[in-house]
């Protein structure tokens, strides 16, 4: 699992790579919460284009990132969902609570 963070203008962008499963979801959650607290940018964008698989613990990590962002008045945006990642969010009926876009250009444009 690789996690890197970019900041541009007033946006924090997380580039995630690998599977967000039980082996890695804790690391993702900690990174998200720490950076969201520190950066306090109005927009947090999660690049999932190099994430093939997300399990229920990974979904939980994203939900915690969303909640932390909302608490600070920030938007929490996902883009680049794989078929599998989109399915798990749809099955959980949580996809509607996230802002989801196809690519980074769209995610930054809105």
């Amino acid at each position, binding site marked *: 699992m690789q996690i890197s963070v970019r900041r541009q203008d007033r946006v924090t962008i997380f580039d995630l790579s690998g599977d967000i499963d039980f*082996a890695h979801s804790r690391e993702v959650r900690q990174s998200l919460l720490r950076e969201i607290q520190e950066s306090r940018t109005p927009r947090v964008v999660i690049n999932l284009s190099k994430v093939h698989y997300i*399990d*229920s613990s990974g979904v939980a990590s994203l939900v915690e990132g969303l909640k932390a962002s909302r608490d600070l008045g920030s938007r929490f945006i996902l883009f680049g969902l794989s*078929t599998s990642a989109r399915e798990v969010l749809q099955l959980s009926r949580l996809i509607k609570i996230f802002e989801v876009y196809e690519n980074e250009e769209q995610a930054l444009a809105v």
Partner: protein
Amino acid sequence: MMALYSNPKWLTIVRAAVERLTGTLGFPAEHCRSITRAVDEALTNIVRHSYSNRPDQPITMYFRTAQRQREGEVQNGLEIILCDRGSGADATKWRERPLGEIRPGGLGLHLIHDAMDVVEFSRKDHTNRLRLVKYLGQASLAL
């Protein structure tokens, strides 16, 4: 049969194996993903709840073909049995969380039930046994 330890680092290996197996057996891609997801979530539950995150405990998985009669047709399928020797899970306390509820946790069980036609838990001789079955339609299994 597949034997592994309860270290989460093996999950990715199991997912790759199950996705390849289900594809080889002729399941459509959507079912390959959902069965793989169910097995992954079941293993995660064993690691978390049965073994309390201890990474060196034994898990054994059995894979075999299954059949059932449905409306005069024989349906072939895949049976997966996961065995562990951890603490006895109280299946009566398993709860799926309400879908769409904005909070972490409780989703894994829903994903297992959503994916599989049969989900049965039992415990005998200090061994927990989770039986998962997914049937194909009338299409025959490739094996």
